[in-house]
């Protein structure tokens, strides 16, 4: 019998384990449809704020020699009300809405705005490393994380995921705070705060100076985080950070992830990456004799 790529992240069930990460290609329902047809098991929207944000001026992205990216797009997004209206016609695509805000009410207000949309989960961005007063600055405050998670959990029956990253507070404290307040799953990790300087002009390249490092350079770090979270907590995990091949995806599953997200690899290999990873995982499962993703989750912790 053909192995199944179906996977569950707590109550969230996906046909395929590879999703689009937040911040990537996420402003058009038409593009979501295309990504779903291209093999994505779900798509995560750009992080939405209560009002539209233009983001930072260019340059907003920089390709590192040797691989990887630094970006500071600045969470540009059309705002939650506009986005909710845009996805109203959605029938087929499993959409996860990423939300960014400063206070619990920002998040609960936006969740309310999506109540008539077909949404399979919310992902709270507690980890963007380059925008003030949101993202990592929120994630670094475990008490605020508790309040936000509790408020959102009280506002909706849709599963809620916390996306954590590496900031000044140990990320495991953020994970712990989110779990204490009833979070349904954890996405780990976001980009890591970084900078690129041009030696000819002797200035930082990104308009915001600091950006988030993503792509292959952060994969081993992200993998370590997934392994640590799954070793310490009984919580569904979505692995994110530098995944570009089916082997990368399987490493995260073996470390304890129930699903994975793809971001930077789209900049390198375009959207074929979804089907390439799906095919690779299926072939691996056939070769190793697995019938379900679930049989492989966390196997690396046994050794």
């Amino acid at each position: 019998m053909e192995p199944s790529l179906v996977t569950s992240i707590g109550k969230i069930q996906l046909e395929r384990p590879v999703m689009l990460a937040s911040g990537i290609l996420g402003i058009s329902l038409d593009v979501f449809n295309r990504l779903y047809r291209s093999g994505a098991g779900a798509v995560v929207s750009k992080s939405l704020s209560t009002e539209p944000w233009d983001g930072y001026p260019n340059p907003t992205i920089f390709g590192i020699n040797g691989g990887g990216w630094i970006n500071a797009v600045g969470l540009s997004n059309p705002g939650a009300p506009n986005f909710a209206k845009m996805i109203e016609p959605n029938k087929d695509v499993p959409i996860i809405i990423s939300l960014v805000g400063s206070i619990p009410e920002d998040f609960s207000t936006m969740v309310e705005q999506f109540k008539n949309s077909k949404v399979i989960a919310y992902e709270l961005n507690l980890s963007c490393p380059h925008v003030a007063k949101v993202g990592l600055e929120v994630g670094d405050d475990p008490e605020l994380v508790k309040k936000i998670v509790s408020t959102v959990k009280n506002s909706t029956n849709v599963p809620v995921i916390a996306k954590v990253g590496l900031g000044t507070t140990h990320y495991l404290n953020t994970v712990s705070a989110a779990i204490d307040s009833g979070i349904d799953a954890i996405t780990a990790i976001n980009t890591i705060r970084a900078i690129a300087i041009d030696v000819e002009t002797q200035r930082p390249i990104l308009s915001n100076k600091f950006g988030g490092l993503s792509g292959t350079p952060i994969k081993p770090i992200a993998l370590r985080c997934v392994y640590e979270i799954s070793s310490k907590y009984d919580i569904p995990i979505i692995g994110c950070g530098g995944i570009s091949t089916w082997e990368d995806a399987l490493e995260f599953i073996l470390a304890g992830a129930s699903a994975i997200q793809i971001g930077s690899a789209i900049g390198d290999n375009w959207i074929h990456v979804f089907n390439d990873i799906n095919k690779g995982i299926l072939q691996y499962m056939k070769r190793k004799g697995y019938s379900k993703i679930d049989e492989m989750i966390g196997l690396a912790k046994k050794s």
Partner: protein
Amino acid sequence: MQRNLNHTKICVIEKVIDETPTVRTLIFSDDVMSSVLPGQFAMVWIPGINELPMSVMIAQESGKAAFTVRKHGPASTGLFNVKVGQQIGVRGPYGNSFDLKQGKLLLVGGGTGLVPMMRLLTHIKPNDDVTVLIGAKSKNEVFFEDLANNLLKNNPHRVIVTTDDGTYGEKGFVTSMVEKLVNEINFDGIYTCGPEIMMYKTVQLAHSRGLFVQASLERMMKCGVGICGSCCVGEDLVCKDGTVFDGDHLISNKEFGRFHRNKAGILENY
């Protein structure tokens, strides 16, 4: 190590040509940019100011490339004001290119949309019969007429200029001339770049007559590599699927000619 095309490469401006009071061509040396295909673009960094997508201009000398810019917003004005000896950063090239047909060709350019048309002229075959349409608002905004004639000097060709106010060339919109020509001539290939409404009408006129047509689109672009999503048009990403699209495809795109997105990604009417 092979050059990482996503890594900004610093280039020095060697020559500046004033095309009109508001349009300049900046020439620099770069082997990668000198050999790009017509329709491809680069992300151009003006240090301290901004970075913007630019179609890459002709390289009449080996190893040289150029950008032609009209001063408009802060970024393009920043590039317009770059002097000889100053540095810019380039990454890319990105995007696809025009499919070159042979025979009777029509090139329709409006404003700085003429840039990829000029690059395309450097790739045509000696026997191609080429008509170039240059659309401008008025006489002082006409440029590249001599360049087009020069590039086509060994081909059967004609260069027609239209101005909206009739101060030079034929009076009227360039699309009126497109309509006249496609009614007279069975073109083997039509190529266009410029304001989207102009391209929309050109594509409609060509498509309705069953003629092969391609357009090079422009959208708000932040990353250039298919990550930020800012440049989406319907299901398409201009940076990865374009900038060049077939007329057949564009006709079925519900946003082409109708909507574009602002910096926040909100759809706005043209």
